[in-house]
């Protein structure tokens, strides 16, 4: 997208992302999907436009605050309207807004296109854990429940907190890199919301309804997120952990899952 946006964006992230980890401090987490990248750039663009307007508008105000004070002998003028400027400062913002809305519209249409996925996974919110069903594509039929794995002692403070405090689960979601993954969300009790910031994906999980979203991760790695819709007592304790792995590793994982399921069934 917009070059200056990208430049400023990367500039900003250079200054601020002390660690190369996905742990961002001042800005969105480092994007690993095209959607997240577009969101990142859009936000940067917005930030720049707003910052420019802000500086311009308050430049004028503070100029006036410093120059036009009584203690400096300023004498009040007596104008109180001017149709020209009033029309100008109504019209110009409209154009600025159109400039903002244009790229945003393209991104919305792109984000909403959940057609022809390689893999479809249903994520079901429960109080307070996530259930996953691989519905279509390689791994079809795999299903498991994913719980917070941070020990109680760390939460209560009797033990030192680990690096991924509250962002770790027993059974992570595993997906292959570079494949379009469609996530269906629903819930069994109250509304939850499935969010992985690095993917630019956030979708409410509404009991009785299926909603969908998608991502295609460009890079292998472990990506973490949280439930972001207030869902009761342990809303803060139902994280999401996604492992993006190579195609081979994914096949191996699938085989292992299928085998252990068969073993379970045999028992």
């Amino acid at each position: 997208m917009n070059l200056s946006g990208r430049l400023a964006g990367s500039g900003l992230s250079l200054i601020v992302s002390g660690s190369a980890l996905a742990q961002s401090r001042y800005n969105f987490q480092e994007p690993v999907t095209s959607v997240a990248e577009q969101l990142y750039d859009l936000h940067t663009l917005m930030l720049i436009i707003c910052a420019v307007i802000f500086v311009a508008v308050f430049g004028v105000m503070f100029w006036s605050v410093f120059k036009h004070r009584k203690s400096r002998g300023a004498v009040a003028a007596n104008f109180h309207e001017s149709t020209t400027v009033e029309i100008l400062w109504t019209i110009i913002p409209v154009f600025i807004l159109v400039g903002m809305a244009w790229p945003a519209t393209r991104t919305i249409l792109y984000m909403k296109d959940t057609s022809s996925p390689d893999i479809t996974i249903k994520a079901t919110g429960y109080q307070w854990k996530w259930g996953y069903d691989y519905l279509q594509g390689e791994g079809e039929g795999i299903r498991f429940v994913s719980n917070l794995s941070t020990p109680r002692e760390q939460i209560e403070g009797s033990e030192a907190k680990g690096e991924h405090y509250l962002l770790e689960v027993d059974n992570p979601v595993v997906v292959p890199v570079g494949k379009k993954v469609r996530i269906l969300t629903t819930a069994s009790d109250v509304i939850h919301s499935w969010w992985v910031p690095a993917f630019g994906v956030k979708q409410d999980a509404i009991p009785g309804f299926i909603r969908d979203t998608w991502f295609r991760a460009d890079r292998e790695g472990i990506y973490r997120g949280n439930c972001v819709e207030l869902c009761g007592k342990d809303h803060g304790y139902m994280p999401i952990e996604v492992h993006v792995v190579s195609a081979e590793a994914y096949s191996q994982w699938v085989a292992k899952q299928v085998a252990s399921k068969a073993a379970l069934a045999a028992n």
Partner: protein
Amino acid sequence: MNHAVDKYFVPEPSKYPIFGSVALLLFGTGAVLWLNQTGPGPQLFFLGVAILVYMLFGWFGQVIRESESGEYSQRVDKSFRWSMGWFIFSEVMFFAAFFGALFYARVLSVPWLASGDNEALLWQGFTADWPSAGPRPDEAFTPMGAWGIPAFNTLLLLTSGATLTWAHHALLKGDRKQLKLGLMLTILLGVVFLGFQMYEYVHAYADLNLRMDSGIYGSTFFLLTGFHGLHVTIGAIMLTVMLFRVMAGHFRPDHHFAFEATAWYWHFVDVVWLILFVVVYWL
């Protein structure tokens, strides 16, 4: 209408508002306790209602005395007109919330539930028909038909609107006899309407198995008709008060806003019914 022409009437300090507040406190807490089946719920609730009734009698009684003793200037009268209009607007918005829920269910949520992934993965076999109690109704029910009692009720309310207008014309002409007659007829029609409405509810529960918990159809049906019925009741009470006031010799052709306000309210309730008849019963 003498000393108060150019001075806007400002009432003396009044004890009624605090009675109203205490009443609502008891009413609200009582209702909560009752709903949760703990503590003296019903007792507090009815105590609240009793105080509220006392307060309404006292307050409106005082307003009527002030009005009849000529304290209210034209300007005060105008204030009453504005305020009644805005009050009815707020009532319109209250009903809009429930009509909105009905439209949403009919146009959006039921069709959604019966299509696409929702149907395929969650509610297999559900089809979007209206009336609907949703994909997993507890029990089957028969919807309420439009052309029996409801149609007749429509006729009753429309007629009552006409009789009320007739009464108003009589008041303007100074014909007290027709005024009384018109009012009585209106009240009668309203009461008969309510009677039928009650019969319909009994019928729904007893014969049609149509209940408040009959899915979204039951929910919208009972809340819309129920709140409408409540408003008819309030309107009928207001009309009755007007009747008593007429008998007590109140109102003049040029000074009778309480009557007009009641009429506005009654017509508003009428219009709500018409919409209700079309979208709840008929279509």
